């Protein structure tokens, strides 16, 4: 078995003789030379990824004012930074929206502005104490004015990520971008062949303390990221780096429509080819890395997976979903991921980037459990009315009017002969028909596009549907689309009133 030591490789990096390739070039080399040959020929494989990494932020130290202030809350360009850490340390999170511009400008935008050399406006509020008498101050700062600007990102560089699509009837705006109705498109994220953790999934090199390329600066792996889940190939990294050395080519603020701000971040890890195992793992191709296509149209934590696809399938731009060709595109940028891997390759070749020995390996088992919810909220089935009056579409408007007057709802679900939901008729629809002077069948005036819920869905989902579509009642249906009850905004307000 061919082997090399890390110090041997670092020696070659220092004298400029190291052979460096990107993770995109490596698979062909390993095919050609075999793993043993690749260990002899290649010293370092550079990886790179550039995508939305919401779980990111920066510790900023503002220095002490005169008179001193103990900042409890700081606004940076009207974006709140957490102040519950000592006097003049604050933590600015990437996804925090601003007070004045909302989600169009957030924590990520403050970071990009700072790195781009712009001045930001700071409003700080403090609690007056004997040692920190100042209660409020305003100042304008640039990146160089902070004592430290240290990025600390709890969860970055996902090994791979679920692809997203939408089975529902309406367009969804998510952190996976715009998802068009009825499987109108697929969005995916991740660099596939260039993904750092997909090139070392067993952590034969990457560990705690590993030196990395973080948005142009040299940063470090602090440890496993939150929700690190290597047993299911969803490993993540917690990383840190000096923001003063970062480059806005690799750090970009973004806003996902109707979702919020996020940070696009470039991360690269050079992997030394110490042995055949690492040669083999860095020979991974897009076709070897698979992810589920997940239906975001189901607004639950456990969204159903429709099929398993590879990054090669996703990058082809078309995926077959239930016999339909669906257009697929990325949210992360493979173009910039290549730039990360190429820039890192250049830095290693020039002897500017040395490889490091991990202090500890990353854990091979992680935890990505669902939240333990101690206060269970009721499901639709627990609060709905079961004595629902339904009608068939061939009855006359007058008859429906009588049913509404005599019943307890001003909505009547319209059902087919076998009890399946076809539409809905409201007191307003009837008034409109009567005012129009037309005596008609229910089938002619009913709303056919009817929103509904299932009995085992949480009431929050019903509340959101009411709110989104400005409606006040919905039929509750079973798996066969048969009407089994009715839920109204009254049910929800009663529940809320009882809770208080």
């Amino acid at each position, binding site marked *: 078995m061919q082997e090399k030591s890390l110090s041997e490789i670092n020696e070659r990096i220092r004298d400029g003789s190291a052979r460096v390739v990107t993770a995109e070039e490596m698979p062909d080399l390993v095919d050609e030379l075999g793993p043993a040959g690749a260990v002899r020929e290649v010293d370092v494989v550079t990886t790179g990824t550039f995508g939305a990494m919401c779980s990111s932020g920066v510790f900023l130290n503002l220095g002490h004012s005169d008179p001193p202030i103990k900042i409890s809350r700081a606004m940076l360009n009207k974006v709140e930074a957490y102040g519950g850490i000592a006097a003049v340390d604050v933590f600015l999170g990437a996804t925090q929206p601003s007070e004045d511009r909302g989600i*169009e400008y957030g924590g990520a935008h403050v970071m990009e502005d700072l790195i781009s050399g712009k001045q930001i406006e700071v409003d700080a509020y403090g609690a007056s104490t004997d040692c920190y008498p100042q209660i409020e101050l305003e100042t304008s700062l640039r990146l160089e004015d902070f004592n430290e600007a240290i990025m600390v990102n709890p969860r970055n560089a996902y090994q791979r990520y679920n692809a997203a699509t939408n089975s529902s009837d309406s367009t969804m705006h998510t952190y996976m971008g*715009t998802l068009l109705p009825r499987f109108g498109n697929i969005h995916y994220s991740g660099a596939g062949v260039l993904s750092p953790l997909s090139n070392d999934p067993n952590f034969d090199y990457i560990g705690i303390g590993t030196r990395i390329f973080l948005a142009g600066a040299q940063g470090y792996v602090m440890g496993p990221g939150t929700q690190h889940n290597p047993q299911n190939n969803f490993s993540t990294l917690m990383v840190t780096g000096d923001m003063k050395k970062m480059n806005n080519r690799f750090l970009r603020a973004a806003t996902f429509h109707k979702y919020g701000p996020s940070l696009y971040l470039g991360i690269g890890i050079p992997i030394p080819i110490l042995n055949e195992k690492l040669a083999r793992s860095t020979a991974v191709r897009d076709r070897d890395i698979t992810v589920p296509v997940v239906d975001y149209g189901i607004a639950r934590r456990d969204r159903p997976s429709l099929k398993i696809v590879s990054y090669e399938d996703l990058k082809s*731009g078309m995926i077959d979903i239930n016999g339909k060709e669906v257009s697929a595109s990325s949210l992360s940028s493979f173009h910039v991921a290549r730039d990360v891997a190429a820039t890192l390759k250049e830095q290693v070749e020039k002897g500017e980037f040395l490889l490091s020995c991990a202090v500890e390996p990353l854990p091979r088992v992680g935890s990505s459990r669902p939240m333990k919810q101690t206060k269970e909220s009721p499901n639709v089935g627990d609060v709905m009315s079961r004595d629902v009056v339904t009608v068939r579409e061939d009855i006359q408007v007058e008859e429906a009017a009588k049913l509404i007057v005599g019943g307890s709802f001003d909505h009547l679900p319209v059902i087919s002969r076998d009890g399946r939901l076809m539409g809905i008729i409201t007191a307003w629809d009837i008034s409109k028909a009567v005012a129009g002077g037309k005596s008609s069948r229910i089938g002619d005036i009913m709303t056919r596009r009817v929103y509904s819920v299932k009995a085992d869905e949480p009431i929050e989902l019903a509340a959101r549907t009411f709110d989104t579509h400005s409606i006040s009642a919905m039929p509750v249906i079973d798996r066969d689309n048969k009407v089994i009850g009715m839920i109204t905004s009254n049910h929800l307000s009663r529940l809320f009133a009882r809770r208080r």
Partner: protein
Amino acid sequence: MKLMLHVAPGIVRYPLIASVILETNALVNIERASIDAVSGEIVLEVPPDKCQEVKDAFERRGVRVVPLEIPVIRDENECVHCGACVSICPTGTFRFEDWRVVADSGKCIQCGACVVGCPQRALKLVLK
């Protein structure tokens, strides 16, 4: 060639498109139409050889006509070539070329889906 029609409220009820088609014999495709109480916006695809004739015919009927030559513009400094615009465009205006996003503006119908879908806010519609 795409034409955008701005229809004033007074003439919305008149069968404008039908009458222009009958007059010019042009094979017109209606790609987008949004009409409300105050005005209407319609995007038509018109064969290049009939374009001037159709434009003139609409203008004689009091419709403001704007040819959509570069309907969507991109800020090259903001674009990171992520591809969020590629699969949401109903007419396939955007595609990857060696992982850079390239646009075929001739396909754009000014629907604006890409403008809100772009995480970097790099896209704008010329006429909005």
